[in-house]
């Protein structure tokens, strides 16, 4: 049971700072959302009214401006998740685990988008939904399946600290695998058969500009959705902490249902902890 003085200190803390500490994930969300909407509108305008039709594929090639940015952002997100996990292992600060989790989660959604749009493009271009002999497709599927095990891995570990640690090790290892896989596929395809577009330097200027703007728009969408997710999780953690404090529970042993998502309540539950240690 809390003492009256401690409770009073807690209530003043609620007034002057959030129970989750100084971190405010919602800050800048509005500006980021507006920038995303503007960038997406500009990107779509460029794709359909500025970029010329490709000689071989014609209108079908417009999928390129959606599929490639999705794939680039998804892969970069996986690598970023690994970098954030390194930061988590270095500092043991659960905020980094939370960020790594959200970035990987979002990258998985983008990867699903990549696979679906890629299949649609393959059907229109080659007449098949999936071509197993294409190393780029198969290697992306392998990366997707690798990361599909991330959430079950987290869910399988009940202890929050161990869950965060193991998940970070996984994120680092898998994050290192992503660029290695990309390099290996590029090296192998160079020996197997020549490619039309090995890099954006082969694209005409208008197409390269459209691809660049589309990639920036997709990156902004990724950042906005990650920020939404972080804000929502942070708000729920704050609510949980507030509920515990109002109920006068034993805050050192918070009740936590089993979840794949990182635990946040143990950080922001008590004023003493929130004051002495950054929340989230």
């Amino acid at each position: 049971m809390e003492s009256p003085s401690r409770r009073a200190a807690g209530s003043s803390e609620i007034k002057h700072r959030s129970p989750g500490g100084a971190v405010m994930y919602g800050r800048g969300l509005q500006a980021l959302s507006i920038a995303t909407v503007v960038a997406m509108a500009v990107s779509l305008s460029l794709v359909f009214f500025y970029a010329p039709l490709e000689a071989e594929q014609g209108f079908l090639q417009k999928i390129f401006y959606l599929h490639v940015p999705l794939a680039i952002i998804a892969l970069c997100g996986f690598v970023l998740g690994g970098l954030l996990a390194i930061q988590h292992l270095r500092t043991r600060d659960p905020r980094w685990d939370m960020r790594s989790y959200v970035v990987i989660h979002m990258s998985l959604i983008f990867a699903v988008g990549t696979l679906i749009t890629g299949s649609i493009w393959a059907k229109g271009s080659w007449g098949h939904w999936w071509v197993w002999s294409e190393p780029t497709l198969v290697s992306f599927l392998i990366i997707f399946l690798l990361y599909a095990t991330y959430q079950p891995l987290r869910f399988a570990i009940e202890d929050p600290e161990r869950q965060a640690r193991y998940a970070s090790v996984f994120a680092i290892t898998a994050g290192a695998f992503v660029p290695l896989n990309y390099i290996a596929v590029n090296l192998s395809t160079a020996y197997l058969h020549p490619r039309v577009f090995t890099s954006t330097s082969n694209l005409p200027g208008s197409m390269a500009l459209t691809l660049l703007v589309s990639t920036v728009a997709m990156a902004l969408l990724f950042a906005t959705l990650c920020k939404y997710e972080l804000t929502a999780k942070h708000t729920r953690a704050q609510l949980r902490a507030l509920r515990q404090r109002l109920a006068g529970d034993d805050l050192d042993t918070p009740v936590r249902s089993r979840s794949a998502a990182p635990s946040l309540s143990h950080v922001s539950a008590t004023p003493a902890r929130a004051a002495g240690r950054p929340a989230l």
Partner: protein
Amino acid sequence: MAGAVLAEVPALPLHTAGKYVAGAYIVLFVLVLIYVAIMAIRLSRIERDLGELLSELDERQEPTPR
């Protein structure tokens, strides 16, 4: 107004590829829509929890009858 704008923009050569391009862009739209729907459900849950906490506070602040 919309008709005038549409008359000015260049015509898109949709023909056979149109359905594939439309399908790919609809996939992205649907994915974002599903995400927004999930976030809306979470937001309504947070709103409900906040309401419960507020009513709990109101109950505590009401003077107990003697």
